[in-house]
């Protein structure tokens, strides 16, 4: 009975927070339209959707890692790695599909090493992924010599220009990925295992879930999505500078946390992260439009991240305090 009630509560909380996020998006949108009338332009709007598409794909992977109770910072570097490997291989004369595949494989390899270290060393994933992030970034500079990779084939670049029913194709791809992963998380056994593992890893492993395998799977999925997102970025931006995705980890993690996913694991939804990314993209681009120094972005995202996480902690503290008060009341009676 009690178990049921808590489950309902969590679902209800997520539902409420998602509705709140949608309201926030509309409010921001309204304010921006009032301040900058050209915001309603179709071209501008589709540009916004295109920009958010790769971030959505990254956020899906990160959400799954967070739900499983892990942490990852490497995806920003992996995103750059896949695009750069793909571009350089194509420039050396390989056919495009093969270089595309090797680009994704390179991202998978990096995330596999990351996962191997995190699982085998049983160490704080944040430190290991910080080190891996640095190593991968350094490899990127080593490959390119600090130069921007250009020269992707025409058909690949044109892919980002196609739109179906007025919606950019890459945005549709991102939504497709998000829906598939959301269904995977909520409807399949492995997806539920991921939630269980994030809630209490030890309990999950005692009940017979092979936690290590699921961890490998989660980190590899994150690496795959990151490299896929990197290639979509390459298609959209037409070039891959070596500092691609330097600030992406902060932005994506903040968006995922805004979406209601707990860093401690076990709670979260992909829909929430999707809405969170949308809020981030709207806000960050409004900085550009309003003509504010883009370096305010760093401060802004950092402050939001700390505030949102502070809220999460405060919530958990309150939820611990309130039952205790009820308990005390019962005793006094």
């Amino acid at each position, binding site marked *: 009975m009690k178990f049921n009630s808590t489950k309902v509560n969590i679902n209800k909380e997520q539902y409420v927070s998602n509705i709140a996020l949608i309201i926030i998006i509309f409010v921001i949108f309204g304010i921006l339209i009032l301040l900058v009338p050209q915001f309603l332009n179709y071209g501008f709007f589709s540009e916004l959707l295109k920009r958010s598409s790769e971030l959505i794909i990254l956020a899906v992977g990160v959400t799954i890692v967070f739900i499983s109770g892990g942490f990852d910072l490497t995806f920003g570097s992996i995103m750059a790695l896949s695009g750069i490997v793909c571009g350089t291989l194509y420039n050396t004369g390989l056919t495009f599909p093969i270089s595309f595949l090797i680009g994704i494989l390179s991202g998978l390899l990096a995330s596999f090493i990351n996962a191997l270290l995190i699982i085998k*060393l049983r160490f*704080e994933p944040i*430190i290991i992924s910080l080190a891996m992030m*640095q*190593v991968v970034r*350094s490899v990127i500079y080593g490959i390119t010599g600090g130069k921007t990779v250009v020269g992707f084939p025409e058909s690949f670049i044109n892919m980002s220009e196609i739109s179906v029913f007025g919606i950019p194709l890459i945005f549709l791809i991102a939504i497709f990925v998000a829906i598939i992963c959301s269904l995977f998380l909520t409807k399949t056994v492995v997806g539920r295992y991921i939630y269980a593992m994030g809630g209490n890893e030890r309990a999950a492993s005692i009940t017979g879930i092979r936690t290590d395998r699921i961890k490998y799977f989660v980190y590899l999925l994150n690496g795959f999505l990151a490299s896929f997102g990197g290639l979509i970025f390459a298609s959209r931006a037409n070039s891959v500078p070596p500092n691609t995705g330097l600030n992406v980890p902060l932005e994506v993690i903040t968006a995922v946390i805004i979406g209601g996913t707990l860093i401690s694991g076990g709670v979260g939804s992909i829909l929430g992260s999707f809405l969170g990314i949308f809020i981030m993209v709207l806000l960050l681009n409004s900085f550009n439009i309003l003509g504010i120094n883009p370096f305010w972005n760093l*401060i802004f995202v950092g*402050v939001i991240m700390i505030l949102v996480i*502070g809220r999460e902690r405060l919530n958990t*503290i309150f939820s611990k305090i309130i039952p205790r008060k009820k308990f005390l009341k019962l005793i006094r009676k």
Partner: protein
Amino acid sequence: MRRSFNKNTFLNKFFINIADKAIFILLILIILIFSITIEGFFSINNFNNISRQIAVIGIISVGITLAIISGGIDLSVGSIMALSVSLGGVGITEGLPLYSVYLIILVTGIILGSINGFLITRLNIKEIIVTLGTLNIYRGAAIIITKGIWVTGIPSAYLFIGEGYMPILLFSVVSIILIIITKYTIFGINLYAIGGNEQSSIFSGVPTIKYKMYVYMLCGFFSALAGIVFIGRSGFVQPQVGVGYEFSAITAVVIGGTSIAGGNGSITRTILGSILMGILLVGLTMLGINPIWEDAITGILLLLAIFIDSLRFRLKERGLKNYEIQLYES
């Protein structure tokens, strides 16, 4: 039944000893390898050069050691350095006297550190998340304050602190003070207690919140101090100073043998760790390796240090198990 000699525990002890002394072995090995392969490596001139290289990272990493011993971490050290140095740069262009510029830099460092401490202790957010946020906030603030412009043409009075034996002298003074603090003061000893088990140290009456505030303020202070040495050494101020320094500092701490889980480790280990890092980086530059790979090498070194750390932890765990078996069987 009693076992007189357990081969397994003997091997365990042997390996634990090796893992504990890994830093010494690595240090001697690296000096040996470089002395053989590079001509002119083993010379007083070169060691002077290395000592100047070590000072900046060394001062930061002894500061960060305090945070790591207390079970936390500070990722924002590089950004604290950048922001305080940028404010100092503004002071220099305004023509303020030397000591007030130094005062501005150090006070900024302490204030930024106390912001970290406030968020960690009062809002009860994980150290690593807070400092990941402030890492970006402080960096952004530094870029906005300087408008991305380099301040060059710094008066020669400022360069005094970065020349000759001054950096290494400052580093030694700082580390001796910190060694005394961590070994002989109540504050220092309680840091180990907080790192070992925060809950139980609260119950036994350690003012954890106050001490944690002190730790992050000290971290900020030492980052700012490293910034002063940096101005003296380089002769310019720019907002991108200290990118990735948190990373090198953590590597120096962990490779020295301080466990990142908190509760053990020492300042001396960190000093050895930063010496190792300095020698390695200078040696690799002398070998003609592209500085692009510097980050990768520090990253791999950090992973290696973590590997040694976890190996030691596991061996100790296994040793304890064997000990329990022995007790049970006797």
